[in-house]
């Protein structure tokens, strides 16, 4: 095709191969706002941003868009992309002996300085191995030498990366905007020294020096937020629980504190966003209102690992939105946050955006709204025509259980809001619930059906003329997965058989013309529970499962539980130990040395309150001293988005 400006020759991609696979546009790049830098002399640091799932999922991810822009803004770095090839392409690459390559310059991943994976969900771990294998990069950090790329990871699963710890040379904890820059600065110093003996000064003034790959990693481990797994030894008790996790080199911190960007307005909003050439899952530009969530729902990992809440100012957001729409030509803008209704200046912001977007014929989408009269009004203004789907997440079927999980929603609120929505012309509602929450009884499961019936009754109580279209009510359940760094990290997951039983019960209770019931495949939830609270002993299991053909495990139709179970058994491990065991309050967790800023004692107290059914107020109402004030930012120090 064209001359690709890199120091390494691009891989040849025969037309025959592209014609033999589904959606070849996934593999050729060339999108609007793609950045392709001239690196013929190899002077730039090559960073491959890897998303271990298909293109359409990876390209929908905000983190990729933020970091792609940010890394390419650096003059010394060229950031390119790679996604997990779908099995047809993976097979074709193997057959033709073509190594996995970046989209921008078709450079083999093995020629990059950094191969960085974003770990969005545990079930993508085998895809990380697939990408490394296809790239010809050794799977374990210990097997890599001076010439191999540094394989790094980040994203939500990095809060307990232990099952994959042996794979990564280093992991980034928390938000990458600042720490990646510091890492690249340090790398630059090492690279200029020919990857031999080098000296550098970290951004906090600490002088570092070292030699070789280990020397570089030792220096990197002193950057706050960088975790080098090889520099920690894990000791186990005879029963398999962790006894201790301790640094094994001098100068390596006992605990690694996650990084946060204190002032979001100083972190760039991605505006020159990549515009995919094929339809992706979320085909729109995102506007990130704030990070974190004040609500503290006890099952929700995002509510604890992104504290404290920090907002962008409405002025910066409106300007960013204008710029992003102009630079991408996208017809849809979505407000993004964990709980959009909590943005202090939501209404005025939305109205400013709508006024801007109307003449451009662009539409505004508002996910993650709490359903109340304010949001119904907003939704009404945002969608002049389409009024189909409203989603709402009560999460639990009874008030008692909602108190256990600290979800401050009452049945009355819900039914009243639904009434307003129906009166306003909506006819499609989707309700999300979780099965298997701590303290759940049969009555709570039945409560889900009762709540659905109450919504149905509310609809029927409306005058006939208002009910122009038939009600379409969907109940969707997922199975609760206890996650690290949450108040429920001590809780067992219900066994697979119980999951199936509860789903069967609900299927029976949710019969009806206007009702439909959707559920997730319980086996994948079970395995997610094994991996999310796993330890380093799972690494050989993941490798084995991968070698035995496990890939794209998050795709229900591809997940192979038997293969995973066999791999566990080969290594003498019991999945119930990880998924279904009640943990002791004093237990040392594999992830305890990774510090999210929230105290373990606070989480334990929240666990106690959960079992007592006591609510905890959200941050703006009353601070519960969770520990995140250590970052000195956002809601903890009273900083709110100015008008």
């Amino acid at each position: 095709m064209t001359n690709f400006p890199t120091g390494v020759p691009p891989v040849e991609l025969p037309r025959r191969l592209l014609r033999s696979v589904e959606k070849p546009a996934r593999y050729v790049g060339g999108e609007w706002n793609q950045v392709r830098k001239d690196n013929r002399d190899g002077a730039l640091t090559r960073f491959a941003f890897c998303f271990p799932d298909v293109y359409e999922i990876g390209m929908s991810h905000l983190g990729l868009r933020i970091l792609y822009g940010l890394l390419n803004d650096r003059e010394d770095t060229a950031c390119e992309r790679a996604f997990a090839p779908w099995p047809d392409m993976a097979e074709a690459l193997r057959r033709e002996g073509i190594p996995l390559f970046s989209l921008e310059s078709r450079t083999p991943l093995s020629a990059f300085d950094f191969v960085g994976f974003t770990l969005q969900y545990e079930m993508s771990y085998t895809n990380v191995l697939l990408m490394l294998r296809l790239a010809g990069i050794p799977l374990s950090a210990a097997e890599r030498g001076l010439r191999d790329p540094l394989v790094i990871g980040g994203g939500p699963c990095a809060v307990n990366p232990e099952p994959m710890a042996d794979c990564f040379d280093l992991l980034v904890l928390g938000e990458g905007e600042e720490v990646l820059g510091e890492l690249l600065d340090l790398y630059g110093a090492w690279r200029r020294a020919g990857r031999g003996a080098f000296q550098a000064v970290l951004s906090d003034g600490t002088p570092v020096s070292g030699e070789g790959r280990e020397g570089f990693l030792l220096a990197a481990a002193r950057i706050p937020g960088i975790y080098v797994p090889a520099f920690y030894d894990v000791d186990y008790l005879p029963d398999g629980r962790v006894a201790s996790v301790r640094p094994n080199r001098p100068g390596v911190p006992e605990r690694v504190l996650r990084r946060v960007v204190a002032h979001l307005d100083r972190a760039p909003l991605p505006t020159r966003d990549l515009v995919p050439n094929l339809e992706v899952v979320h085909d729109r530009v995102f506007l990130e209102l704030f990070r974190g969530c004040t609500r503290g729902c006890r099952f929700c990992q995002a509510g604890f690992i992104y504290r404290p809440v920090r907002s962008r100012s409405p002025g910066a957001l409106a300007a960013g939105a204008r710029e992003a729409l102009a630079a991408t030509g996208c017809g849809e803008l979505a407000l993004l946050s964990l709980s959009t209704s909590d943005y202090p200046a939501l209404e005025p912001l939305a109205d400013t955006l709508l006024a801007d977007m109307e003449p451009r014929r662009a539409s505004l989408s508002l996910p993650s709204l709490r359903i109340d009269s304010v949001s119904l009004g907003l939704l009404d203004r945002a969608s002049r025509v389409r009024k189909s789907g409203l989603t709402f997440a009560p999460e639990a079927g009874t008030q008692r259980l909602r108190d256990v999980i600290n979800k401050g929603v009452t049945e009355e609120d819900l039914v009243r809001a639904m009434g307003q929505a129906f009166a306003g012309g909506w006819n499609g509602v989707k309700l999300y619930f979780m099965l298997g929450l701590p303290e759940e009884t049969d009555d709570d499961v039945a409560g889900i059906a009762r709540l659905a019936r109450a919504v149905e009754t509310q609809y029927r109580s409306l005058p006939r003329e208002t009910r122009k279209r038939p009600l379409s009510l969907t109940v969707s359940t997922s199975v609760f997965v206890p996650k690290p760094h949450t108040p429920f990290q001590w809780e067992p997951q219900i066994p697979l058989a119980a999951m199936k039983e509860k789903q069967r019960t609900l299927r029976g209770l949710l019969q009806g013309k206007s009702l439909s019931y959707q559920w997730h495949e319980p086996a994948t939830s079970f395995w997610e529970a094994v991996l999310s609270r796993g330890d380093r002993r799972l690494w050989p299991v993941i490798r084995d499962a991968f070698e035995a053909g496990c890939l794209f495990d998050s795709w229900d139709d591809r997940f192979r539980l038997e293969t995973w179970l066999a791999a566990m058994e080969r290594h003498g491990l019991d999945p119930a130990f990880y998924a279904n065991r009640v943990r002791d309050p004093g237990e040392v967790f594999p992830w305890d040395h990774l510090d999210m800023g929230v105290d373990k004692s606070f989480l334990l107290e929240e666990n106690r309150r959960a079992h007592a059914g006591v609510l905890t107020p959200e941050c703006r109402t009353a601070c519960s001293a969770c520990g995140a004030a250590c970052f000195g930012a956002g809601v903890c120090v009273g900083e709110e988005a100015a008008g």
Partner: protein
Amino acid sequence: MTAQEPNAKRTFRIRFARTGPAAWIGHLDLMRVFERALRRACLPAAFTQGFNPHPVMTFALPLGVGVETRDDYAEIGLSEDMDPALFARRLSAALPEGLAVSQAQAVASEGGPGLMARVRAAEYRLEFPGASAACRRLLDRMARPGDDGALPVEKKGKDGVRTLDLRPLVLSLDPAPPALPAAGPAGGVAQATPVSARESARDALSALVAAGSRENLRPDLLLDALVRYAGVPEAVAGNARILRTGLFVDGPGGTLVRPM
């Protein structure tokens, strides 16, 4: 159809090229790519009404995935008039790598069949090692009388596989087409259409075939015929570069003319 759309005050016909990575974009996705380019370039595109407004736009003849083109056409509705040359320039500058618009002109919007319905033929250039010789072998076969010269191939359709004789659909074959000019079609802009001199000098054949809504010969079927009747190895045919070099509509007195 463009002309009937109430929002469209004007219709522009554009001539465009697509090569490189853009060749792998599917037809529906290509429409979206153009839509976003129209928005980025802030051009006064007319939008359809309804739930999901999208620009009023039709392509003369959809392109298969992996097929490049040097000479293609589409019509775009505008909500207000503007200079066609400026329209072409601005749209072209807002298109991603491999797509370029070389020309635009206003077309009469009163009645008559649309561009799509008037397409009659397309010219394809197929590049692969041994193309010229294979083309000569195919010409020899087609010169044979009756069934001996027929080119039956299997075509997968909605209702299963059927056999189709390609001979009547092949209007002419050229075993030695001239090398492609490095730039786009005559007078074209063809920025970002990297076809190197080396590439266009390759062994090639050129075929003028029936195209359009009545009869249409897809270039991959022609490659099938080359495999079956001219001894081209399947792997070679599968790797061929397929480039549309011309698109023709009915002209005066049954002639074929380019739409622009």
